[in-house]
């Protein structure tokens, strides 16, 4: 464990990521090779334990011969036979004890390697997911990522201490024990091992089949999981439409798909296990028969036969485990591949080699002819086309447009959640792809429409981006976001637990918490991406007034479909189908009589943006 920790100083060099391109099993084996001390001690202990274990048949055989010595009528001395029996008993006791001690060492080392590899993979997996760009997280179901992080890593771990080391034990017992047996009696030795080819053949056959069924079973189970999850998540819809039977039908179909595969797995696994056990017993029968005839012919003693039979009895447990080994290897093959698939991925957005920290001067953000498409150059139709603008300290840029026009994409490009497919984005003249991600994300803040709350107290959620923030700063931030009064009114105030298992906040409260979170960090460039959609217009105006001081010397971008939110901006971009089709300040755009004007009239007509009507009365708000 400690050697593992020492190595972990450089997360990038984790063993989990070094052996790309190899098969899952190879990579797991190579990862285990990193624990050379543990592995060395474990294998050594295995060899020693096997040695002691193989002494047991020998001494038992000897004891049988001694006990039989009088019967054999060779004129043996009963006292000498008694002494020999005592000696054999002592050796058996010693061998048993030492075998136990070394087996313990071997088992412990095996489990330690397995757990350490599980630990390594878990850390590497966690880290990788943290670094993967949002494009990836958008695409992949979070339930799937959890299955990989929990069940698949567990599958790999179990392979290490269950299958890998047990295979070593089996190989040592078979080769070393086989050698000893064959040197005692070649024919009996060969007969004793005659089951090995059968076991190997069936084992590898079923391994291939099991691998396939494991994969198929996993896929079908995840469909079933998704169906149940959606049903429970959307239970109101299900109830509202009296769709119980429909939903049960979906469940049953997926369930019977999964059960077919589960049955196939059981069938393959156990029919093979039965055949393997049978071949083992057949070998035992052959030893008994051939050995018996050799005794009758007088070429071996009863003790030798007993030795062979006890040796075979020792093999019984490992042979029984072969089925398990094959099963868990097949599982590790599938699970390992699923884990390594994630570990091998390169985040689409990452520091360029030689990236430097952003040198922040005034904090001027420029978009220069930016194009963007989600699937990359060749992929889907472009989302943004030829977007250019500049926003500097103390200035406010407003962006408005119909849904799907690409507004939010702009917000995502600034902290490099995605990279543009054309043109460039600069801050104080530096292309944001040339600076380190950390320094970039420190300089820019984006407040989103939806917010994730961590299961933690309110204050640690507000101070999520700055662990050192004191209460004063936290309160300042929540006051600006018009959330302080609510929190202060809670019985436990800022200590109140929120998140999945805590207090439920309303959509507007969550958005305000999100605003507080970003405000606390005082980024040089701050973007509000529809971040007040669920906050009422009046509170929004209060928030803006409160933020005025704060944003005085910063660049601000406001993306909204509520015109009152951005009508006071220094420049407003109207975006449609990824292009800027109108730009200017509010009055100029109204005078233009284009899309902006149309939209303004529409909102006035519906009267759903009181901020517009009220703007005359409250000129300073904004």
């Amino acid at each position, binding site marked *: 464990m400690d050697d593992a920790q020492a190595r972990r100083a450089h997360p990038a060099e984790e063993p989990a990521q070094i052996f790309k391109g190899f098969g899952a099993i190879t990579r797991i084996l190579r990862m285990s090779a990193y624990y050379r001390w543990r592995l060395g001690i474990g294998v050594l202990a295995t060899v020693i334990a096997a040695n002691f274990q193989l002494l047991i048949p020998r001494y038992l055989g000897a004891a049988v011969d001694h006990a039989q010595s009088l019967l054999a009528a060779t004129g043996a001395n009963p006292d000498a036979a008694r002494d020999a029996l005592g000696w054999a008993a002592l050796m058996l006791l010693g061998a048993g004890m030492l075998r136990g001690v070394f087996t313990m060492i071997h088992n412990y080392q095996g489990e330690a390697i397995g757990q350490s590899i599980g630990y390594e993979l878990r*850390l590497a997996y966690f880290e990788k997911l943290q670094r993967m760009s949002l494009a990836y*997280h958008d695409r992949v179901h979070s339930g799937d990522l959890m299955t990989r992080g929990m069940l698949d890593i567990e599958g790999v771990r179990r392979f290490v201490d269950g299958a890998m080391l047990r295979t070593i034990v089996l190989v040592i017992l078979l080769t070393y024990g086989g050698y000893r047996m064959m040197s005692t009696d070649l024919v009996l030795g060969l007969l004793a091992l005659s089951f090995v080819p059968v076991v190997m053949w069936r084992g590898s056959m079923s391994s291939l089949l099991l691998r396939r069924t494991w994969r198929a079973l996993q896929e079908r189970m995840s469909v079933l999981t998704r169906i149940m999850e959606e049903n429970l998540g959307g239970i109101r819809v299900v109830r*509202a439409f009296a769709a119980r039977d429909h939903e049960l039908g979906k469940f049953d179909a997926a369930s019977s798909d999964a059960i077919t595969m589960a049955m196939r797995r059981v069938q393959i696994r156990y029919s093979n296990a039965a055949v393997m056990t049978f071949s083992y017993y057949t070998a035992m029968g052959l030893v008994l028969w051939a050995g018996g005839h050799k005794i009758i012919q007088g070429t071996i003693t009863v003790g030798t036969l007993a030795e062979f039979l006890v040796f075979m009895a020792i093999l019984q447990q490992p042979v029984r485990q072969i089925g398990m080994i094959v099963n868990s290897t097949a599982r590790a093959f599938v699970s390992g591949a699923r884990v390594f698939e994630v570990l091998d991925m390169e985040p689409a957005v990452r520091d360029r080699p030689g990236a430097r920290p952003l040198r922040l001067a005034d904090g001027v953000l420029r978009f220069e002819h930016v194009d963007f498409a989600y699937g990359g150059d060749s992929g889907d139709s472009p989302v943004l086309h030829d977007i250019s603008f500049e926003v500097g300290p103390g200035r406010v840029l407003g962006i408005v447009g119909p849904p799907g026009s690409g507004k939010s994409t702009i917000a995502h490009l600034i902290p490099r959640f995605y990279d543009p497919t054309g043109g460039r984005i600069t801050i104080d003249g530096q292309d944001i792809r040339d600076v380190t991600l950390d320094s970039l994300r420190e300089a820019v803040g984006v407040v989103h429409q939806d917010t994730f709350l961590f299961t933690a107290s309110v204050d640690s959620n507000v101070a999520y981006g700055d662990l050192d923030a004191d209460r004063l700063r936290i309160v300042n931030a929540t006051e600006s976001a018009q959330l302080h009064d609510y929190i202060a009114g809670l019985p436990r105030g800022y200590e109140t637990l929120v998140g999945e298992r805590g207090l439920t906040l309303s959509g507007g409260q969550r958005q305000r918490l999100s605003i507080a979170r970003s405000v606390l960090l005082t980024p040089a460039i701050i973007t509000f991406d529809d971040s007040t959609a669920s906050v009422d217009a009046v509170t929004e105006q209060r928030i803006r007034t409160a933020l005025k001081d704060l944003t005085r010397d910063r660049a601000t971008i406001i993306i909204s479909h509520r015109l009152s939110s951005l009508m006071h901006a220094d420049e407003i971009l109207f975006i449609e189908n990824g292009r800027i089709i109108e730009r200017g300040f509010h009055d100029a755009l109204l005078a233009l009589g284009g899309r902006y004007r149309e939209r303004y009239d529409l909102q006035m007509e519906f009267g759903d943006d009181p901020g517009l009507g009220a703007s005359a009365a409250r000129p300073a708000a904004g």
Partner: protein
Amino acid sequence: MAIMPQSLATPVDPGRTQTPGAAGALSDEMDERIFGAAFDGKVIQRFAKFLWPHRRRLLVALGGVVAFTATQLSIPLVIRTAIDRALTPPGVDGDLLDLITLAFLGVIAVNLVATYVQETIVGKTAERVLFDLRRAMYVHLQNLSMSFMDKTEVGRLMARLQSDVGALQEFLDTTVTTIGDILLLFGIVAVLLSLDWKLGLLTLSVVLVLLIVRMIWLPMAKKSFMHARQTSSIVNGALAENINGVRTVQEMLRERANFERFEVKARDNLRSHLRAAKFSQVMVPIVDTLTGTAMAIVVVVGGNRVLGGSLDLGVMVAFVFYVQRFFDPIRSLTIQYSVMQRAMASGQRIFEVMDVPVNIRDKPDAVTLDRIDGSIEFNHVTFGYLPGQPVLNDVTFTVAPGETVALVGPTGSGKTSITALIHRFYDVWEGTVRVGGHDVRDVTQDSLGHQVGMVLQEPFLFTGTIFDNIRFCTSGATRDDVIAAARAVGAHDFIERLPKGYDTMLEQRGGNLSLGQRQLVSFARAIVADTPILLLDEATASIDSYTERQIQIALKRLLAGRSGVVIAHRLATIRGADRIIVLNRGRIVETGTHRELLERRGLYHRLYSMNYASFDDIPEALIKDATESSST
């Protein structure tokens, strides 16, 4: 969450909000309980009900186990016979050896069949039982009242449907082995004593030592096993949170800090597992030493008696075989013990869900509703979620067939509860709710669902194509019906523009559609369902004005020819309704058309003249002022 009745989402009693998970209907304590009794009669009993349908096959399997154990026991006996009758003087006999070998082959042939039969039958039955169990739990969840579902997190239910069922699988998989092990244990004891009771007792005395050692070991080991499992669930919880909040993590540059925190948890997990491994492994040399001791006893005592002629050599050899096998079942029973503990805890959690009573069920003589006229009648209805805290107080109103009524009022005034009662998500405390003249409690829930449609505030879409989502459970609907519905609500154009039109697969929760588009799809779904009554909870989040206009048009189409009860947030919707019911604190304050209410200059007028986009936007303080001044 937003559609949850306010009284549950944020309980009125401030003390309650402070207890994390207080709203959860499944006990927290239960979730944490990982180790308990290894045997719980109640769980076993409940479980047995699921095994009962498979009793014939299980009986066969049990026969297999018995046969299997018998063959295991007879192999050393066959060897003993060979040694005593055919291989040692005076009875050296090659022909007899051949016969005995044939007998051996017979035994292992039985063993083959028995192994195959018991393992495949049990393995398959186990899978089937688990799927049955999962289905039973799932079906039960479909029948439980909304008040339970509202209070319970999906994640917790999923954990029970998946992890707990999984724990039982592990248990069932190993149960046969356990039964076999126990049988074998008793078998070996019996055979040892019958072969030679003195030597047998002497050998078995070693087992007493093992039992004493285990009694000391178990409580210590248990603690370390429990800790290991707890750290595992902490690690998995941290991973889940980081996956779900990844955007915030990246944005706030928390990667390093989170990694460090995770590393501490992961290391703690590693350490506790290694500690548990030490505890379980320490038993290995003890058991092996005891095995060695037992063998030494056989060799010294047995060997001397063979020398003295009072014991057959074959018996001594058979003893050696039995002693070797004797500790295997004990060892695997030790492992089985923790599997059983886990299974019992999981079983308790599963049956806890299945024991949640179904509060709302069809009466035995419930009527199946046929196409009704669409009238709704509330007659002195009082209702609440928590005892003593009514959310609706003596509410009486009617909705005529074809009429659209807007429910208006501040947050928590009882609007959502009214719609929930029409659909009988809950039962009233007092009074009656009638639909088409029938008390909702007198009709089958299924048929009620076919008369009362519902559009939720947050459109929920399922994985599948747009077509599947619009048609949903109206299996009789044709493609033309679906397209006509989409056209009616103005969704056809944007659907056609999608890469595969109606056959476009939706991403997780319809992620590839905008909120407004999802809403239109959910409208289309309601049109296809074509119910005479429609309950509609309007979205609060402000939507783009273009979409807004489309939605307003769609709303009119949707409500045409139906009775509608709309929880209205937008002034445009409110003004468009035939009648407005103004609610406050669970009572009807005013009712009338927009114009009438404005003329009355009551609460509605006050709220309206505040010029807010929706009544939900109005800050608490202002509402308080408005209600107080209007009541004076």
